[in-house]
């Protein structure tokens, strides 16, 4: 177990280091989420409901995550490095864990900017919304990472990832918006936690079959 965690940590650290050097994912995510919120601010009428504005927050989060996920396997694909990672004696799911951790880190940083910006442009954010976003992030990254690995192997990867990811993200939006608006947010947060647990387990177990024949 210690070795598994050490492998996952080494792979996540490598992704964070790559981003620190190349800076081609996080700045794009930050720019995108702020641009989307600004556009929504002007597009949404002043009389729009809180439900509508929160819905837009989730749209912004999902598409920002999609941007990060779309780039998560770029280095491996362009430089063919996945072959060397797959041949290593470590458990192949450690590659998935490393990618989930690094993508999660990028998404959290983007949200640290996006949530205050949303509060500034639209409406205040309560603890239930923050908890919903945190739980949703785990699900988004768990599901998105395995789909990004699948899409990276295909030709129309830019098209394939959203097509695979967005239908699977609908429960996340339902749970997230519900947690923000419902009087008792607990059941929606529980729903998001259940989604995370089930999909993370499936993605973790299936990853080996995605990166090998």
């Amino acid at each position: 177990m210690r070795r598994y965690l050490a492998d996952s940590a080494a792979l996540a650290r490598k992704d964070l280091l790559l981003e620190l050097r190349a800076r081609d994912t996080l700045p794009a995510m930050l720019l995108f989420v702020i641009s989307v919120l600004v556009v929504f601010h002007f597009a949404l009428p002043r009389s729009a409901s809180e439900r509508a504005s929160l819905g837009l927050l989730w749209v912004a989060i999902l598409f920002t995550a999609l941007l990060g996920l779309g780039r998560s396997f770029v280095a491996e694909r362009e430089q063919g490095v996945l072959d060397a990672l797959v041949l290593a004696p470590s458990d192949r799911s450690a590659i998935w864990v490393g990618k989930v951790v690094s993508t999660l880190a990028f998404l959290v940083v983007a949200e640290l900017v996006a949530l205050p910006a949303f509060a500034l442009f639209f409406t205040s954010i309560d603890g239930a919304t923050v908890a919903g976003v945190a739980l949703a992030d785990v699900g988004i990254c768990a599901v998105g990472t395995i789909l990004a690995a699948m899409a990276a192997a295909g030709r129309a990867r830019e098209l394939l990832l959203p097509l695979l990811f967005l239908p699977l993200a609908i429960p996340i939006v339902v749970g997230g918006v519900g947690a923000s608006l419902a009087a008792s947010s607990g059941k929606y947060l529980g729903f998001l936690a259940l989604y995370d647990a089930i999909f993370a387990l499936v993605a973790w177990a299936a990853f080996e079959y995605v990166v090998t024949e």
Partner: protein
Amino acid sequence: MIRASRAARRFGDKRALEPVDFELERGGFLVVTGPNGSGKTTLLRLCAGLLVPTSGELEVDAFRGQVGYLAHEPLVYRELTALENLDLYGRLYRVPERRERIGMLLERFGLWEARHERAGSYSRGMLQRLALCRTLLHEPELLILDEPANALDAEGEALLERELDELRRERTLLVASHAPERLDGFATGRLALA
């Protein structure tokens, strides 16, 4: 160590490797030759475990961590330095005394001075040397090398020949080459793909 019986590989309608039979004993050195498109790289990827044959049988008597695979691409991250790349692989391949081993390989392949430079700034020949360091890092029992002399200068080729001469004494080697005559002194067999 490797036994292929009518092993072949297709990608959709395209036949990438015609059925091939061969046997490579432990400690053997087999050179794979053939024109472009004959399936040399496909055969090597099959033996490395990156592909499975679509027909026939292929048995490789080596665990994942015992295989060292040198591909056409160096399989290193361009934004990381040579040291960082090898450290990552050293961790994943559980190399004992990792730092000492990395230092020794970088020194031997003439990359010690450039160890803190990003791999992306390396010339093609330096990348090939780094790829050789990566391949040899975990002291694999089975070495699968795809055009190992690719992009190497005369000094690099001489270094590679010295390495191969040393490796053939204790390892099993499967090497694809366009210039097999250079390896005739080491090889125990040759497999020509049509």
